[in-house]
C-alpha cells in the first residue's frame, strides 16, 4: 500500500435541466452513477468506496451521504460526504483522488449532484455567509461577483462588451454539448440587451439554476490500465480556500486562483501554461471571470485578459480552448458543477469529447470556484505522471 498514481477511467452525467420533477434526488444521482459505470464498463460491485457532495440547504436534506445510498450505490460500502460550497464538485474529485492515491481503495466512485429547483438558490447561498456580520447585508452571489467585476473594470478599463464576448463563447460552445442545459447561441448585443441584474452583470452574463448530477470513477495505477484503454491521469490537485470573511477579499484579483495554479504548475513542472496546457474547463459562473481569472492563472499578463479573449484564442480551434462544454454559464447544478468540469477535462484527455473534442490534448485543467472566492484546481494528463 501507500502512494498510488490515479487515473479517471469513466464519467457520467445526467442531461441537465432547469427542473427535473420526473425524478427525486436519489433517482437523479442514480442516472449519473449508471452512466459512469457504463462508461467504465463496471458494476457497482466493483466500486470500493464512494465520495459524494452537494450543498445541504439547496435540498434541505441532512446527512446526504446516508440518504443517498439507494441512488449512489452506497449500501454496505464506505461512503463519505465532502462539501465546500460551489467548490464541492471539485473538492469531491480531489477527495476521490486522495482515497485512491492513499492505497486504501482501488476504485472509487465520486458523485456530485444538486436539485436547485427544490429551493430558493439565492436564499440558500446567502445563508453561507456569517450570520452575524455578512448575512444580513449580503446581496446574493451575483452581487458578490458584480463587485469583483467592478473592481477589475476600474483597474484595467475593461467594458461590459468584453464580458459579453466570454458569454458568447461559452454559449456557442454549449451547442456542441448535449448535456448542457442552455444550448442557444447569442450575440454580444443580446447579452448587453438582457436585463441588468447587478451592475455590470446582465442576465446573459451569468449561470442558470440547474438540476443535475455527475459521476466520475477513479482507479489506481495497478488496475486502471486493465480496466480502460483510454485513461486520464491526475497529475496534481490544489484546494485553496483562502478567505473566511468576505470583506478580506482582494477584489479584482482571485488570489486563490493564483495560488492554486502556481502550486499545480510547480508540481508538474509547467513553465508556459498557455502553451503547455491544451484545454481548460473553468468553473466560471459569470462572464467577467473568464477575463479576470485567466490572468490569475498566468495564461496572460494582468490586464490582457480581454484582448486574449477577443483574439479567439480561447474559442474552439484557438490556441487554448476554454470551456468546450459550454461551462457553467450553460449549466450549473451547483454540487455537480465542479465535478462536471473534472469529467469534461477527463473526456478531453481520453479523447471521448465527441464534437466538442479539442485535438491532441496532453494537459487539461479543471477548476472549481465557490465559498469566499475560493479555488480548487486539478491538472489532468494524457501520460502517466513521472513523479
Amino acid at each position, binding site marked *: 500500500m*501507500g502512494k*498510488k498514481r490515479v487515473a479517471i477511467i469513466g464519467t457520467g452525467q445526467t442531461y441537465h435541466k432547469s427542473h427535473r420533477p420526473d425524478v427525486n434526488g436519489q433517482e437523479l444521482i442514480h442516472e449519473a452513477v449508471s452512466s459512469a459505470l457504463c462508461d467504465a464498463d463496471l458494476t457497482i460491485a466493483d466500486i470500493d468506496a464512494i465520495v459524494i457532495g452537494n450543498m445541504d440547504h439547496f435540498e*434541505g436534506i441532512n446527512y446526504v*451521504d446516508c440518504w443517498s445510498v439507494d441512488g449512489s450505490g452506497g449500501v454496505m460500502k464506505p461512503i463519505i460526504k465532502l462539501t465546500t460550497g460551489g467548490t464541492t464538485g471539485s473538492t469531491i474529485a480531489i477527495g476521490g483522488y486522495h482515497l485512491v492515491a492513499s492505497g486504501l481503495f482501488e476504485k472509487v466512485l465520486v458523485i456530485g449532484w444538486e436539485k436547485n429547483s427544490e429551493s430558493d438558490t439565492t436564499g440558500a447561498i446567502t445563508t453561507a455567509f456569517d450570520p452575524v456580520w455578512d448575512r444580513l447585508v449580503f446581496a446574493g452571489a451575483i452581487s458578490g461577483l458584480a463587485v469583483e467585476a467592478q473592481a477589475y473594470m476600474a483597474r484595467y478599463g475593461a467594458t461590459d462588451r468584453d464580458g459579453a464576448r466570454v458569454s458568447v463563447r461559452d454559449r456557442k460552445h454549449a451547442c456542441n454539448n448535449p448535456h448542457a442545459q442552455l444550448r442557444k447561441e447569442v450575440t454580444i448585443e443580446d447579452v448587453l440587451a438582457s436585463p441588468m441584474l447587478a451592475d455590470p452583470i446582465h442576465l446573459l452574463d451569468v449561470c442558470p439554476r440547474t438540476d443535475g448530477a455527475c459521476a466520475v470513477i477513479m482507479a489506481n495505477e495497478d488496475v486502471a490500465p486493465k480496466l480502460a484503454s483510454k485513461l486520464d491521469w491526475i497529475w496534481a490537485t490544489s484546494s485553496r480556500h483562502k*478567505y*473566511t470573511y468576505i470583506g478580506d477579499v482582494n477584489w479584482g484579483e482571485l488570489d486563490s486562483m493564483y495560488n492554486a495554479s502556481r502550486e499545480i504548475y510547480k508540481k508538474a513542472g509547467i513553465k508556459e501554461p498557455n502553451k503547455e496546457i491544451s484545454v481548460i474547463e473553468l468553473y466560471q459562473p459569470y462572464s467577467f471571470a473568464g477575463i479576470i481569472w485567466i490572468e490569475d492563472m498566468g495564461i496572460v499578463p494582468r490586464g490582457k485578459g480581454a484582448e486574449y479573449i477577443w483574439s479567439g484564442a480561447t474559442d474552439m480551434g484557438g490556441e487554448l480552448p476554454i470551456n468546450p462544454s459550454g461551462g457553467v454559464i450553460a449549466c450549473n447544478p451547483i454540487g455537480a458543477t465542479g465535478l462536471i468540469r473534472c469529467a469534461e477535462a477527463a473526456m478531453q484527455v481520453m479523447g471521448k469529447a465527441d464534437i466538442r473534442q479539442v485535438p491532441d490534448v496532453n494537459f487539461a485543467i479543471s477548476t472549481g470556484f465557490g465559498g469566499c472566492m475560493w479555488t480548487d484546481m486539478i491538472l489532468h494528463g494524457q501520460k502517466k505522471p513521472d513523479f
Partner: protein
Amino acid sequence: MENAAIIGIGMTKIEANKVRETFADMVWEAVNKALNDAQMTINDIDNIITTSNDFWDGRTISCMAVGDASGARNKNVSCVEGDGTFGAFYGLTRVLSGSYGTTLVTAHSKGSESISSLITNAAFDPIYDRSLGMDMITACAMQATAYMYRTGTTSKQIAQVSVKNHGNAKNNPMSQLPMDITVEDVLNSEMISDPLHKLDCSPVSDGCCAIIIANKDRALKYNDKPVWIKGVSFCSDSYFLGDRDLSKAASLTKATNAAYKMAGINNPKDEIQVAELYDAFTYQELMWLEAMGLCDDGKGSELLENKYFDIGGKLPVNPSGGLLSGHPVIAAGLIRIAEIVKQLRGEAGKYQVHGAKLGVAQGVNGLAGQSHCVWVLGKEK
C-alpha cells in the same frame, strides 16, 4: 497498512452552552492545544481538514467559519461533512497519498445554538418520512426496542451503561456531565421515547476537537509519543429504517472487520484493551460492542453487570465518560480517537487504563447508526 500516526490532540471542554464562543473560537482553542501537544507550529502543518455540518451550524458552507482559526489561509484545505472520524479518515488518506506529510483535522459543533430534533428530523427523507415528525431520538428508541427484543436485554441493564459512563466522567475534567447516579435514577428519569429515559440519552453539547496526523517520516520528528494508526475503515448500511434489521449493526461489523484485518487483529476480545464508542444512547454501547466482536452477540449486558467494561475490567469501554457525559455532534467521534490516543500514551490521568497498548475508537453518521467509521490505534508501530 502503511505507517501513519496521530502525533497531536487538543480539545475544548465539553459544555452545555458555550455562549461566549463562536465556532472559530472553539477551533482556535483546540488547534492550539493540538499544536502545543505535538510540539509543532502551524508552519509544520501541510494541509487541513475541517469537519462540520451545515445543518448543525445553521449555515451553508459551514467550513467557511473556521478557515482562519484552523490556519488554512495559505494552505490546502478541505471539509468533510459528517462525524469527525470521517474527517480524520480523509485527513489520513491525504497523508498516505504522499501529497502531504501532516494533516491537521478539526471537528466542531454547538448543539446549544439550535433545536436538535429539528436538525435530525431533516435527516429523514422529505418525501416519505419527514412529516411524521421523527427525529434521532425516536429513531434510536425504535432501534433500542428492536435490539432489546432480540437479545432480551432489559431497561435495567442498559441503565447500567449510564451509571458507568457518568461515573467515569467524574475523572475527566473535559466532560460535561460527571454524575454519581444509580440504576434507579436512570429508570426514574423522565421517559423521553419508549424505552429510552432521559438518562439513557446523551445531552446537547458544544465542543471541538483537533488531531494531527503524520506520515511515517514525520511521525517522530516533533515528539516521541506517536500513536500509530493500525487499521481504519468505514461502511454504510441501508437508509430507510425499514430496509435494515435495526437490532443489528451490519455496517459496523463490516467496517470493524476490515479495520481489524488491516491491523492484523484476529481475536479482538483478547487483543483490544480499551474502547471509546459512540454511546449516544445507553443501549448503543452494548449494541456496538457486540457488532464489533468485542463480546458475544447479546451478551453485552451480562458482562456489563460483571464490571467487565469498567475502568478496572477486562475491556474498559468509554473510560472518558463517553457521549452520555458530553455529546458535541461531529466532534464526538474525533474526541473518541483523541481519548484513545490519551490512553495509549498513558496520559489519561485518573481514568487511565493501565498498560493499554491497543485501542479502538468509533464514530457514527446518520440515523440509528447507519454509517460507522472504526479506528484501531496502537502504541507500537
